């Protein structure tokens, strides 16, 4: 299993500012994933963060808006830049923890609830 710590758990920010969300994992993992969950909606993958290389972004998400750092195998940050009220969402970090050779399970942080005013 994997234990994920996300900071901050919630924040209220002014439009036009930026917020950096931290994700700390208790074990080394190759890939870390960042998701967004808009109010009342399902999860949408923002990007995959790989250590030692640039993050891979999904369609509709760009590096200028959501820069990601991955300095080592246990830590990643997601920045939400130049925020607008439309960025108000829950942002979640996720990793995999293998249990058996044919069975993998994704673990998620508690999420960061962001409100932009």
């Amino acid at each position, binding site marked *: 299993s994997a234990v*994920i710590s996300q900071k901050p758990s919630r924040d209220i920010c002014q439009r036009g500012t930026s917020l950096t969300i931290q994700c700390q994992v208790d074990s080394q993992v*190759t*890939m870390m*994933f960042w*998701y967004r969950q808009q109010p009342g909606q*399902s*999860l*949408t*993958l923002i990007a*995959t963060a790989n250590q030692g290389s640039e993050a891979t972004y*999904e369609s509709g998400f760009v590096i200028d808006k959501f820069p990601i750092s991955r300095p080592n195998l246990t830590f990643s940050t997601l920045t939400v830049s130049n925020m607008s009220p439309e960025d108000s969402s829950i942002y*979640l970090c*996720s990793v*995999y923890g*293998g249990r058996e050779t*044919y*069975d*993998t*399970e*994704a*673990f*998620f*942080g*508690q*999420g960061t*609830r962001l409100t932009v005013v």
Partner: protein
Amino acid sequence: LAKTTQPISMDSYEGQEVNITCSHNNIATNDYITWYQQFPSQGPRFIIQGYKTKVTNEVASLFIPADRKSSTLSLPRVSLSDTAVYYCLVDKNQGGKLIFGQGTELSVKP
């Protein structure tokens, strides 16, 4: 990645068995079926995963017919604490990205 379709919401009462069916008509040969549970203000949590036939763990059972175009998550004797959103996902089980559908919002009433 195969698309999944689930009921948007379901209601149940405490002590009942709840069956949530997911449709995944375009599932590939090497795809697995995985269910996650999400409580309010928490990240999703793995419930169960299967490839074919039936899988059972301490939380739920997963029934997968031979054609694998659908699956049913069965929660025995639900309680109020089972009120959550349940997501059915289909993926290659290779530790890659997950595509979440809309999920089923289960409401358990006393």
